[in-house]
């Protein structure tokens, strides 16, 4: 029967995924990372993650003869269990084989394979017994996931909300307790000091609260929202609740660095820098549709020109040398000059690539971006930017003696510039200029024929995008106070492009969400630092498959992405009509 084969196939894939996760160390290294009590650990979660997903995937409703058909609960649970068991079995065989082959021999290639790992995945039993237990546990996991799939939505939603809330809070065990401490709140009932994760009491309380809110939202959510946001709308156009919401948002934004403490403020500062970069790149890629892979260029231009103008000194072997440019401008006087320099640099980058499109444009900009690293490392520019040694002593952007180098202060400076950039970007997009960019993105030749000077508007996009991106560079220079070429590698370009795409091309909220996910999360979850690349790749692949328009899509851009599919549909329909016509003639 084909169904069984597909369950097993998915199960085998899941088994190999678990093997992969074990090999890269996501299991072995996190045996002691407690999420809830000492029972729910990250390692255990990883061990059953693939079977859970497998169980959920194989029970998706099938489209049969144009109808969506869900599986009957019993069939679904059997399917999930079979799939999960297969996954566990595959992994179990791998464990037995590994043990037979010799752990030490495997470790010479896969560093993460160790006795404790084998011990953990076999539950302290001999390998064969362990494999049997693994199969059983995985079968239960698969069955549970399948069971969740066939649970009516009324119950399913609170359950998933509760579980995901508990897990998220479990992961944030380094952050939330600090915040609670800062606020002077009692934390011991929620987070255990000795084992790290949530306490069982805390988990149950949080889960119940989340489930409760979810039920409330499902039953009364629409009504409540309608009541909150419509009252008073006739008079002022702004509902009081909306005003309150904005005020709360502002209050939160202002209070955040003092609530979350220094470590997280540092991370947030970096997130804000990337938001600036993202907003800039979004103008080039999202609005004007020009794929730029060399965006680090503007990051470097912003950082180095800020450093030079504010009188930073060259690093030498003996310490700090003389300032390269003895201008020693005030930071706020330097910023407009930095913007002009960056806009000029945008024109410089833009001019040679005006005739290029798509892949070619991407390649050339990649090369141009790479040049910046070569330049700032080159001996030729040592007298100006210090070469590989870099510079130090960048202004701390002080206003009347109030410096912004300190992490919690820096946050405000960066936030200010982010708000400015958001405002500028939003106004541009909603103007004649934004319209010209959109037209150019959709059909360059036609835009030109309708009177849009595409040369000028491409250059304008590069200049505006570059100027806003350079603010990110300025902020970076202020934040760390010294610069070395190592901070301006191609990875920056890729990361910024990634966050813009992840958030949704052309979407400003998307840039913020993208930065939080790709820059904020890795900064917060320091334990997973090494897995940044892995998570980054997985996240992009997942988004491209599940939500190609991005997390917070721009409506128009998402339509453009669907266009191709629509064209195919139309074609298929036409064919159907043709076929029908031919058949009609035949009869």
């Amino acid at each position: 029967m084909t169904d069984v084969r597909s369950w097993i196939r998915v199960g085998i894939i899941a088994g190999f995924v678990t093997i992969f996760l074990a090999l890269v160390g996501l299991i072995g290294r996190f045996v002691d990372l407690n999420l809830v009590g000492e029972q729910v650990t990250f390692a255990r979660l990883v061990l059953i993650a693939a079977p859970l997903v497998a169980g959920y995937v194989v029970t998706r409703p099938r489209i049969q003869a144009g109808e969506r058909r869900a599986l009957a609960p019993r069939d679904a649970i059997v399917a999930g269990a079979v799939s999960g068991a297969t996954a566990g079995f595959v992994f179990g065989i791998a464990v037995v084989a590994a043990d037979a082959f010799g752990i030490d021999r495997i470790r010479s290639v896969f560093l993460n394979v160790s006795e404790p790992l084998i011990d953990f995945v076999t539950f302290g039993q001999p390998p064969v017994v362990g494999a049997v237990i693994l199969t059983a546990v995985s079968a239960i996991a698969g069955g549970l996931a399948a069971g969740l799939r066939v649970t009516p939505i009324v119950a399913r939603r609170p359950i998933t909300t509760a579980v995901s809330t508990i897990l998220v809070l479990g992961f944030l065990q380094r952050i939330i307790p600090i915040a609670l401490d800062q606020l002077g709140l009692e934390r011991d009932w929620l987070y255990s000091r000795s084992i790290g994760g949530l306490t069982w009491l805390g988990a149950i309380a949080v889960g119940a609260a989340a489930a409760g809110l979810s039920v409330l939202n499902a039953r009364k959510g629409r009504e409540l929202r309608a009541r909150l946001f419509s009252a008073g709308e006739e008079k002022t156009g702004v509902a009081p609740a909306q005003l309150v919401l904005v005020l709360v948002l502002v209050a939160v934004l202002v209070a955040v660095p003092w609530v979350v403490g220094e470590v997280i403020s540092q991370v947030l500062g970096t997130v804000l820098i990337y938001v600036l970069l993202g907003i800039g790149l979004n103008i080039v890629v999202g609005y004007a549709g020009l794929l730029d892979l060399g965006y680090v260029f503007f990051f470097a231009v912003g950082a180095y020109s800020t450093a030079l103008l504010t009188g930073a000194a060259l690093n030498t072997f003996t310490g700090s040398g003389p300032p390269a440019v003895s201008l020693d401008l005030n930071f706020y006087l330097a910023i407009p000059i930095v913007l002009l320099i960056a806009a000029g640099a945008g024109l410089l980058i833009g001019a040679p690539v005006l005739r290029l499109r798509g892949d070619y444009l991407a390649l050339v900009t990649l090369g141009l971006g790479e040049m910046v690293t070569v330049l700032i490392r080159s001996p030729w520019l040592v007298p100006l930017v210090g070469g590989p040694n870099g510079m130090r002593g960048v202004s701390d952007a002080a206003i009347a003696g109030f410096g912004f180098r300190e992490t919690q202060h820096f946050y405000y400076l960066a936030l200010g510039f982010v708000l400015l950039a958001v405002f500028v970007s939003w106004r541009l997009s909603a103007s004649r200029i934004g319209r010209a960019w959109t037209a150019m993105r959709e059909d360059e030749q036609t835009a030109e024929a309708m009177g849009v000077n595409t040369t000028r508007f491409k250059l304008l996009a590069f200049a505006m995008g570059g100027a806003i991106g350079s603010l990110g560079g300025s902020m970076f220079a202020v934040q760390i106070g010294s610069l070395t070429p190592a901070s301006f590698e191609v990875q920056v370009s890729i990361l910024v492009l990634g966050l813009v795409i992840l958030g949704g091309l052309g979407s400003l909220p998307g840039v913020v969400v993208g930065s939080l996910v790709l820059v904020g999360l890795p900064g917060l979850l320091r334990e997973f630092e090494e897995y940044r690349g892995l998570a980054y790749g997985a996240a992009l692949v997942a988004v491209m498959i599940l939500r190609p328009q991005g997390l917070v899509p721009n409506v128009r851009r998402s339509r453009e992405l669907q266009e191709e599919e629509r064209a195919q549909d139309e074609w298929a329909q036409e064919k159907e009509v043709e076929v029908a016509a031919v058949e009609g003639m035949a009869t």
Partner: protein
Amino acid sequence: MSEAPAVLEVRGLEKHFGGLYALTGLDMEVRGREIVSVIGPNGAGKSTLFNTITGLYGPDGGDVRFEGQSIVGLKPSQITRLGISRTFQTVHLFPNMTVLENAMVGQHSRSRSGVLGAVLRLPSQRNEEERIRGKARESLSFFGPRLSGYRQEQPAFTLSYANRRRLEIARALATEPKLLLLDEPTAGMNPTETQELTDQIWRLRKDRGVTILVIEHDMRVVKGVSDRVIALDYGKKIAEGTYEEVAHDERVIEAYLGTKASA
């Protein structure tokens, strides 16, 4: 026919694509407020002529003059600004912009506010934006209820085929052209719609004083709208005159049907 000055003059126009000679020494002119049809079999060079006039292609020889000024070498956007606008043989709308926004893009070259105006929303910019919107609405209103009301806020791809063609014309009108080039405006329309558009082409000249050069395959339309017909074949003008004259010209018949018993 009164001899108005020539709005468009084409002299010895050449356009080659490798070994293919799409236009070979073409001479023609269009006078003010005239409606001229260009006909000819497929591959005769009609669309190449349009693309060369509007600056999409640079000619390989000859000259194109608009209101006495040579426009060879100008960018398409500059030519649009001078007052030549066009529609495309295959519809080229901005599919994900709304109907109104499509028409508003047409106003681009008639407006000027820049970065500062957009960011600060200066009064001048707001007025201009209002004017752009007004002009765009006015262009759309040329087609009466077809492109009005709720439709204006819908993305262009939702329009029916005939309405897409109409929107292309409206967008071209929004550029405030003196000379309008229509490339097969009735392609894909049913007889009723074709008749309607034929009347509207007349009205374009009557109400707006636009000079029109139109490529058309439907001979009823050609007969209906043209003051003068120019027939092309192999990049050359093979006949010119009233519809009746051209329709009975032997070379034209030969171009369309082949020579009698010559094979």
